[in-house]
């Protein structure tokens, strides 16, 4: 068993994600208190190792079967690394890959897992994670009693610059796992069509969530948006229902936006939505539930019923 902290690197378009650097920064804090090293595992494209800064070692795994992501192939590499290195902790982002891999690695390697982690600290020798549960309404402080401890971390929880501190890492290739028996095959990656409007380019967005209740009432939000000259954005349930096009979805599996103003109606503020808009300069939220997590990121809030507030706003905006 070592005191190292293993970070699962993530990349897209030949670039390491911000999330990767957030994890490296968090890993450094833990590794320093344990007296261990930060080891980044980079699956798929060994050439990206040069982008890693702030770690002690980069372990690469590069093979034809790893160039396109499948849980099965990644899992065999990562499980191999966990068994071989017996790190104290493994940090992985709660992206699609994290949602796919973390729990499988926990079961396969028999190690504990905390998901939705937003904070990590070492208490004595024990790793203590703070996780966000019940859609962000409750925080749980959890001691992970055995090692390796896997932590699925919510994007944006740690500063990315802490992990991008200068300092090149040593690079070594992983012992190649047996990839001959993989059952899952990658077919194609399809990127979404650009929508009618680019919500990432707007200064002001009027966002609607499930609180609107019905497709017909989307019009109430559209009227306000029209009066303000702003596009309508949405939470996932609205685009899943087909009430607005997917190109309007903000969040983890939608678009990341950073408008100067973001007005929210009937959106609870689940972590997956907040991931896409928390950096907006002015956030105003309308939600009848005063405990709604959206009020933790909004600058201004109201618990009025959106059906009462929207017409008043539209009237003033049209005036």
């Amino acid at each position, binding site marked *: 068993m070592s005191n190292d902290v293993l970070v699962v690197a993530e990349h*897209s378009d030949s670039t390491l994600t911000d999330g990767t650097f957030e994890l490296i920064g968090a890993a450094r804090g833990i590794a320093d208190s344990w007296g261990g090293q930060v080891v980044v595992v980079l699956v798929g494209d060994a050439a990206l190792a040069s982008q890693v800064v702030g770690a002690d070692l980069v372990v690469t795994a590069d093979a034809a079967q790893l160039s396109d992501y*499948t*849980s099965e192939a990644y899992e065999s590499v990562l499980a191999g690394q966990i068994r071989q290195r017996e790190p104290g902790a493994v940090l992985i982002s709660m*992206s*699609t890959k994290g*949602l*796919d*891999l973390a*729990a*499988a690695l*926990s*079961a396969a390697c028999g190690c*504990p897992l*905390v*998901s939705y982690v937003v904070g990590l600290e070492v208490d004595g020798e024990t790793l*203590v994670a703070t996780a966000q*549960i*019940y859609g962000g*309404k*409750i*925080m*749980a*402080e959890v*001691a*992970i*009693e055995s090692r390796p401890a896997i932590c699925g971390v919510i994007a944006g929880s740690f500063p990315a610059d802490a992990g991008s501190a200068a300092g090149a890492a040593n690079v070594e290739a992983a012992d190649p796992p047996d990839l001959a028996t993989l059952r*899952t*095959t*990658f*077919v194609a990656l*399809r*990127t*979404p069509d650009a929508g009618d409007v680019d919500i990432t380019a707007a200064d002001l967005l009027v966002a609607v969530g499930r609180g609107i209740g019905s497709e017909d009432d989307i019009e109430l939000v559209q009227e306000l948006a029209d009066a*303000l000259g702003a596009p309508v954005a949405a939470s*996932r349930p609205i685009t899943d229902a087909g009430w607005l096009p*997917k190109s309007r*979805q903000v969040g983890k599996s*939608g678009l990341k936006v950073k408008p*100067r*103003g973001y*007005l929210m109606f009937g959106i*609870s503020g689940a972590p997956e939505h907040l991931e896409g808009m928390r950096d907006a*300069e*002015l956030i*105003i939220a309308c939600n009848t539930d*005063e*405990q709604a*997590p959206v*009020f933790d*990121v909004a*600058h*201004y*809030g*109201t618990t*009025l019923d959106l059906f*009462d*507030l929207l017409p*008043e*706003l539209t009237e*003033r905006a049209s005036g």
Partner: protein
Amino acid sequence: MRVVVVLKQVPDLVEEFEIDSDGTDIDREYLTFLLNEFDNHALEEALLIKDATGAAVEVVALDDPDVDQALYTAIAKGADRAVKLVGASGEGWLDTHTRAAAFAAWLGGEGYDLVLTGVQAADDLDGQLAPMLGALLGVPHVSVVVGVEAADGAARVRQEFAGGAVSELDVPLPAVIGVQAARAEPRYAAITKIRQAQQEGGLEQIDIDRPATSSGLTVRRMYPPERSDRAEMLTGTEAEVADKIIALIRDRGLMQG
């Protein structure tokens, strides 16, 4: 083809959450429990596969609060079999590791082709069920899935990434899939059909042993998020609040005209 959908009840997130007297769990007494919304999507995807291929759809759950309602609703929507596994749950929260072990033990004795469940649930503190189940059963698993087409011992699944990018994968069956969203909005069951299913009582109850598993976690404390930089709440009538909001956006130069 046998498609098994694993269901779980979770507290309605719109309700007021309170912490219990130990400070290490939520107080469940006054909460309403509903079917995890992603499990509802998993059920819909299974029913779409049934519509297309004639597959049998079976739903299974542990003895969660008000779970009978969810199971009868699934029958009313078209599930062919509903199973409740009794004996794994105690009072309060049951970790995903124990859930996964219970379902894996039961599924191991069943000849399933495809297992569908929600991509996550709001109380998955120790991780998500689908990948854990895949690993325990030793079968391929794919999560964050937005479409499954299954036929002839294989499935083509669509896995979603950030920005809405979708990867298409082929997996041989059996496999476990974590569903993010079904290809269509989940169907509704008529109340009369749910009542009919309840009256017919076609719920199979199977006693199981509580798996000797645990999450390996100790919850030290649960608490509502600290509200230090919480939103400034705008008060007053609709008209007054509307005035304040318009003033805020006008001050930032975000109003046209």
